[in-house]
């Protein structure tokens, strides 16, 4: 693999117990990854519907990496952290990192039902869905790849 700058590391929850998962770029591996979101959601007693929201956001982040990133290592790196004041955790945070070609985050056009139905531009909803379903989302992208950090409170 070519040398590149490392991804910026600013763990918002340093010290929180982390579970890291690396999945290959392959069909339906995004669903395999959601099993971990499920297990950690249950670990902090997050409700079923919120866990489903987290799982869909994770699916969207993974399929973006699969489809758009052209990663060099053919992998997507996911880190799960739980934390908060109470022992068992108050939030679940997921970082999805690909070492792909990145994109201009400011240049992404916002989707709308009108564009979708009237102009028949049906794609382009992934990032919007992620932002709608998670409580906090940070997206960073550059030549080193793309990193989405998202958090959901119980």
């Amino acid at each position: 693999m070519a040398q590149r700058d490392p991804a910026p590391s600013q763990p918002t929850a340093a010290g929180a117990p982390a579970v890291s998962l690396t999945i290959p770029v392959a069909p339906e591996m995004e669903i395999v990854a959601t099993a971990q979101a499920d297990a950690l959601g249950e670990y902090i007693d997050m409700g079923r519907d919120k866990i489903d929201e987290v799982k869909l956001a994770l699916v969207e982040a993974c399929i973006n990496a699969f489809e758009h990133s052209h990663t060099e290592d053919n992998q997507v790196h996911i880190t799960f952290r739980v934390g908060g004041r109470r022992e068992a955790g108050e939030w679940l945070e997921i970082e999805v990192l690909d070492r792909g070609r990145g994109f201009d985050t400011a240049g992404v056009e916002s989707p709308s039902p009108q564009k979708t139905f009237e102009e028949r531009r049906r794609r382009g909803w992934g990032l919007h869905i992620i932002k709608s379903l998670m409580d906090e989302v940070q997206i960073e992208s550059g030549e080193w790849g793309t990193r989405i950090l998202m958090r959901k409170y119980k």
Partner: protein
Amino acid sequence: MNETCRVSVERRGDVAVFWTDGYINNQGGEEIAREAYSELDRGARALIMNLEKTRIVNSIGISILIEVLEKVMERKAVLAFCGLTPTIDKTFRIMGLAQYAAIYPTEDEAFRAVSAPA
């Protein structure tokens, strides 16, 4: 790989009822679309999609369902969804699918609604 969505269809007069089971991604969406177009070709006036055994529909899957919805509208037929989890319901609303397709809590309600004389 049994995550792949299974689709079954039953015809009741001019209503076709679809049941999905599992993850709806591009593949699952295309499977649904194939079945839907074949029912429209066979004269279905209404399609009901019962998603109660599906917990995740990704944005690519939804984009295909939107394509199906557009075809349904072109044919002056109707499309109704039922059995949506709160998350799927929310996503359908965000993407505007709920503005053009009807959403009912249960299959019975969907069936009564699409069978009612216009």
